[in-house]
């Protein structure tokens, strides 16, 4: 009974804390500007099914892709086991679903096989990060914390899976001894392989180990649940909505700025009918200086990023040694958004500090982009770093007139002679006269 009370208290605390964390993140995402991503819902569902559920972009890189599928499928399916743990914890039962009989055996056997695959995947990931030291996990923006964060997640998964398998191993021995309430239930294709190392122990010691693993597993999951909102690992939840709300337009199409359209229309024809401006609307900035100027989708992108670095490793600017890294753009956006969120928590929602995204992202980074869309193509969860770069360029150009001198020259030429080079518009047909 005492154990049940502790369990229920822990469960309530974990769920409460998680919902608080979740609402904090939702509030932060809602600081972004409005953008309509509710159209074409069947295309959106298909995109989510294909990209997030079906992992279609993960497998573009086969080794990481397949290992990730192990961990992903394992994670989702083994969580059915958590349901049983919760029921057992609340009601003080043991293996509540065992009445399902042979289907239960099948379930437990598949959980075990998946747990093994998760272990394989996670160990391969640890090796890739820490022994092979793949370049994209060690580039500049991968400072101590992002690297530690990744390792914390991976090691937690190793521990959780090990606890799960050890629990089954000891349970299996206890079942064979028909000890106490350890009824025959489940099938243990993986844990039975190493159960031998526990077979010399007394039944009381085995119960101790089994209970320890059970508690460790569930407390580990509660802790994990409340760690991910502070971690890059939040992608396990956001991957789904983030792909649902993907940009479905051609990647080459940049957004149209309505606010500019009305001004340009007035400039070209002062008598042109233009929709009236809402006098109560807050004046909107051109482009993005801070997270408030980005859309909620761009902010969701930042929380969805798991820092895998596929964007950066395919970025032509980054790969030729420029400072730009699309992953860093996303990490900076998230860091700044978290900072803004902390300010709001401490100082209230109207508080503004004197910092902005430009304290995180330099002009040099922004101007190094070739807008080639390699980053958006590479992202396994359809994050769009390019759109943030473009919004920030818009701010620099239209609000601050900060633009590389050659580009300012190019603007002048387009404006004066209708071409980015110094040629007379009258000479446009000269190509036909040569040869």
């Amino acid at each position, binding site marked *: 009974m005492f154990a049940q009370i502790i369990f229920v208290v822990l469960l309530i605390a974990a769920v409460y804390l998680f919902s608080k964390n979740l609402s904090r993140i939702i509030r932060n995402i809602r600081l972004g500007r409005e953008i309509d991503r509710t159209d074409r819902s069947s295309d959106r569902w298909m995109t989510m099914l294909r990209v997030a559920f079906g992992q279609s972009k993960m497998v*573009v890189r086969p080794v990481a892709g397949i290992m990730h599928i192990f961990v992903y499928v394992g994670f989702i399916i083994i969580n059915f086991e958590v349901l049983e743990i919760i029921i057992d914890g609340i009601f003080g039962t043991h293996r509540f679903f065992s009445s399902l009989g042979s289907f239960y055996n099948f379930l437990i056997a598949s959980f075990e096989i998946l747990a093994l695959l998760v272990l394989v995947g996670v160990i391969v990931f640890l090796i890739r990060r820490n022994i092979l030291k793949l370049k994209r996990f060690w580039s500049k923006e991968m400072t101590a914390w992002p690297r530690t964060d990744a390792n914390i997640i991976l090691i937690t998964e190793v521990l959780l899976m090990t606890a799960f398998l050890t629990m089954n191993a000891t349970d299996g021995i206890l079942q064979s001894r028909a000890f106490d309430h350890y009824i025959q239930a489940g099938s243990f294709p993986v844990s039975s392989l190493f159960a031998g190392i526990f077979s010399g122990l007394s039944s009381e010691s085995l119960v101790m180990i089994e209970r320890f693993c059970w508690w460790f597993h569930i407390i580990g999951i509660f802790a994990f649940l409340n760690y991910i909102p502070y971690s890059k690992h939040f992608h396990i939840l956001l991957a789904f909505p983030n792909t649902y709300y993907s940009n479905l*337009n*051609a*990647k*080459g*199409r*940049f957004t149209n*700025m309505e606010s*500019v*359209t009305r001004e*340009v*229309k007035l*400039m*070209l024809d002062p008598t042109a009918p233009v929709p009236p401006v809402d006098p109560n609307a807050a004046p909107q900035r*051109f482009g993005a200086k801070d997270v408030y100027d980005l859309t909620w989708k761009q902010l969701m992108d930042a929380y969805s990023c798991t820092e895998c670095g596929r964007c950066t490793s395919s970025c*032509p*600017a980054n*790969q*030729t*040694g*420029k400072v730009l890294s699309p992953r860093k753009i996303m990490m900076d956006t998230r860091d700044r958004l978290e900072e803004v969120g902390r300010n709001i928590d401490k100082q209230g929602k109207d508080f503004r500090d004197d910092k902005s995204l430009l304290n995180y992202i330099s002009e*040099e980074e922004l*101007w*190094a*982009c*070739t*807008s080639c*869309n*390699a980053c958006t*193509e590479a992202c396994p969860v359809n994050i769009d770093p390019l759109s943030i770069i*473009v919004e*920030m*360029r*818009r*701010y*620099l150009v*239209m609000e601050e007139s900060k*633009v*590389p001198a*050659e*580009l300012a*020259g*190019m*603007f002048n030429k*387009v*404006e004066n002679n*209708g*071409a*980015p*080079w110094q*040629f007379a*518009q009258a*000479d*446009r*047909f*000269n*190509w*036909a006269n*040569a*040869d």
Partner: protein
Amino acid sequence: MAEFAARGEAPEVLFWVGCAGSFDERAQKITRAVAKILHHAGVAFAVLGSEESCTGDPAKRAGNEFLFQMQAMMNIQLLNGYGIRKIVTACPHCFNTLKNEYPELGGNYEVVHHSELLQKLFSEGKIKVQGGSFQGKKITFHDPCYLGRGNDVYEAPRNVLEKLDVELSEMKRSRAKGFCCGAGGAQMFKEPEKGQKDVNVERTEEALALNPDIIAVGCPFCMTMMTDGVKNFNKEDKVKVLDIAELIAGAAEL
């Protein structure tokens, strides 16, 4: 175009030449190749000549939305005035802008890249080539970002190249994984930020590793970048950089 309008006729298609195609000496050759092919195929096409103006693409990529929209609205006024419905262009940047970014500002046209039009002309039997001078040559195609990833056109240029009876050899980074030439996003008009290498050198190195006779491109900016890249490796005598239109026009001896 003005002549068509004066006669009260409408062309089948407007050939949008673009700034590079109008002024860049190398790209002018691409423009002439496209024009020759269209003539040969009997396509009634027009150009805007001195009425054409920059689509605004480089301004938009560089964040100058005002300038972009000014250019776009002036061009749309002109295009709509002539009642243009269909546009072909040899520049993927113009293609993308006209196709994707003009509709919201009131310019709705069917816009195709010249590789798509060439593909169609082949399938209709309006142009034919018998391998010609390029038969058996080793060619690799460099995907323009704004044609490939930007608009998901990967096969049209390859289908056209296959008509040449050449050996098509793909770089490791091709199609959706294609590596930029370094000119997009208004980089064409500025020096690159400091780094270890220029993007076009990296890309040309990858292309040259295949030992091609020809690097085929479908964009005047890629043309500049890849040509400079080949020069950087002193390979300009061995490896030619040619636009798909030049290859077709050359093979058909136009």
